[in-house]
């Protein structure tokens, strides 16, 4: 009633396929919360009624990697856990993005010890890093908005040169 009258004159909208797909993808990012330690509690707090991540489209926090497109790694990753995180990442279907939440995932955080991986970008491609120990939920929402911006700029041709073996795992 309102939108059609505003946007169209004759009942047609012109856009590119890329823009429409990117718009729909970025407004329904389903995160997979890889909640490992303290940042996980702040991630749950980002989903509670005060900071409501659902209004950004992340209505469901799917714990299954096959049904999600964003992995929020929240918590300190140790060497033992790194194998698990990589395995879960490999199980996610393309296109997928990663938020490194907190200081521990960005660079090892305050743990400079024998069992902590100093930054998950040693074995995962990360899109957005979030600072904080733990980051406030507003910070996580800011990271989510940055991912949405990044998705909004993506084009179909970014995914065309990927060989079939890499897409089907």
């Amino acid at each position, binding site marked *: 009633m309102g939108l059609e009258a505003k946007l169209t004159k004759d009942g047609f909208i012109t856009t590119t396929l890329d823009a429409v797909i990117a718009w729909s993808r970025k407004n329904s990012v389903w995160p997979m919360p*890889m*909640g*490992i*330690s*303290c940042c*996980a*509690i*702040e991630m*749950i*707090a980002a989903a*509670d*009624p*005060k900071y409501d991540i659902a209004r950004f489209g992340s209505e469901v926090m799917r*714990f299954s990697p096959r049904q999600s497109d964003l992995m929020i790694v929240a*918590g*300190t990753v*140790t*060497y*033992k*856990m790194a*194998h*698990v*995180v990589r395995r*879960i990442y490999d199980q996610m279907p393309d296109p997928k993005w990663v938020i490194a939440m907190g200081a521990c995932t960005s660079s090892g955080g*305050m*743990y*400079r*010890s*024998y*069992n*902590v991986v100093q930054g998950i970008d040693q074995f995962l491609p990360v899109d957005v890093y979030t600072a904080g*120990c*733990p980051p*406030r939920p507003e910070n996580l929402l800011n990271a989510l908005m940055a991912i949405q911006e990044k998705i909004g700029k993506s084009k179909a041709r970014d995914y065309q040169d990927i060989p079939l073996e890499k897409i089907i795992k």
Partner: protein
Amino acid sequence: MKKEINISNDEKLLKALMSQAADITIDDALENDMIINMGPQHPATHGVLRVVLRLDGEKVISSVPELGYLHRGYEKMAENMSYIEFIPHTDRLDYTATMCNNVAYVLAVEKLIGIEAPKRAQYIRMIIAELSRIAAHMVAIGTFAMDVGAVTMVMWTFRERETIQNIFDRVAGARFTTSYTRIGGVASDIDDVSLKMIKDFLDQFAAALDEMARLLNSNKIFLDRLDGVGVLSKEEAIAHGVTGPSLRASGVEYDVRRAKPYLFYNEMDFNIPTYTEGDCLARYHLRAEEVKESVKILYQCLEKIPAGEIIANEPKKVLAHKTEIYSKMEELIHDFMIINQGINPPVGDVFFSAENPKGELGFYMVSNGTGYPWKLKIRSPSASNLQVLPILCKGCMVSDVVAIIGSLDPVMGEADK
């Protein structure tokens, strides 16, 4: 030079799993059992806990929990930093009740040095510890109900937790990992606006608790799911070193705040709820009642809190206030010595334990006279409580394992140190 190590080698774990129930024979039609991995990444394992289950259909024959996916090396790090520098690390131990860990640690260090914080600081510590206890039980009850199926609870309990975190934000500067306590007192004073915020929160909290209780307590599905599941007997609980709500739900009336009172708990009037059934439902009800007892303690603290200093007057052991360091010579020298050389406690070892929401958190410190501890052992309640998991899971269904883990309420940051 070094051989390639396979980090996921499970041989010994599987051997332990199979040897646990060596007397069981399967005479099912299929005649074999299934080994299933309830892996570190799981919506219901409360963190990164791996449980390997051996199943006969849906029933669990034996189970072996595996820890260590969050082992960050706290004890080794503690040997390489001073006592004051370790305070932010204690926040991340039981990360649902951050203030409680801070309080327990500084009390242990004060026991080692032999000083005592002033009365107002002790009351402030009691207030924040009890608020933390309420916050931790809110997470525990919320996630436990969510695991069992009542997803609304996590939203309601986190709403209450947000109010508490607002209070912490005002008192300590950070909403979650606060590092608010210092050796000899607390970092900054608590003002009247914060005290009023706490009182307002407590006044509306009883109604919120009532609402939550009405949602769950007579819900048939909730009761059927939890009644009689995971029964822990009194002897097993004591033999396996279980402490905290899980011990009190099995009939042992042991609370460190009563047995070895610290802060000013011996002047507070509160009950210790105890149940005798020892199943998941008893543990849930116990946590709800403990929240009500904490509210009682908080009301009394708010009435009785005295005016006074918030940090002890021991120049060689306690950091002075920043304004004094910048303006007076002796405080500057003491600050320099304390930061560079440490607080140098006497040679010896102490064990101090406090009642955390998860159980009894203990610190065993060995000092050799220098500013760094020679050894710091964290006696974590979650690791001790998890020891009883294989016994509770024996003979129940897979979904009962989820309910049992939720009711034991482990926090892996603490269990793995």
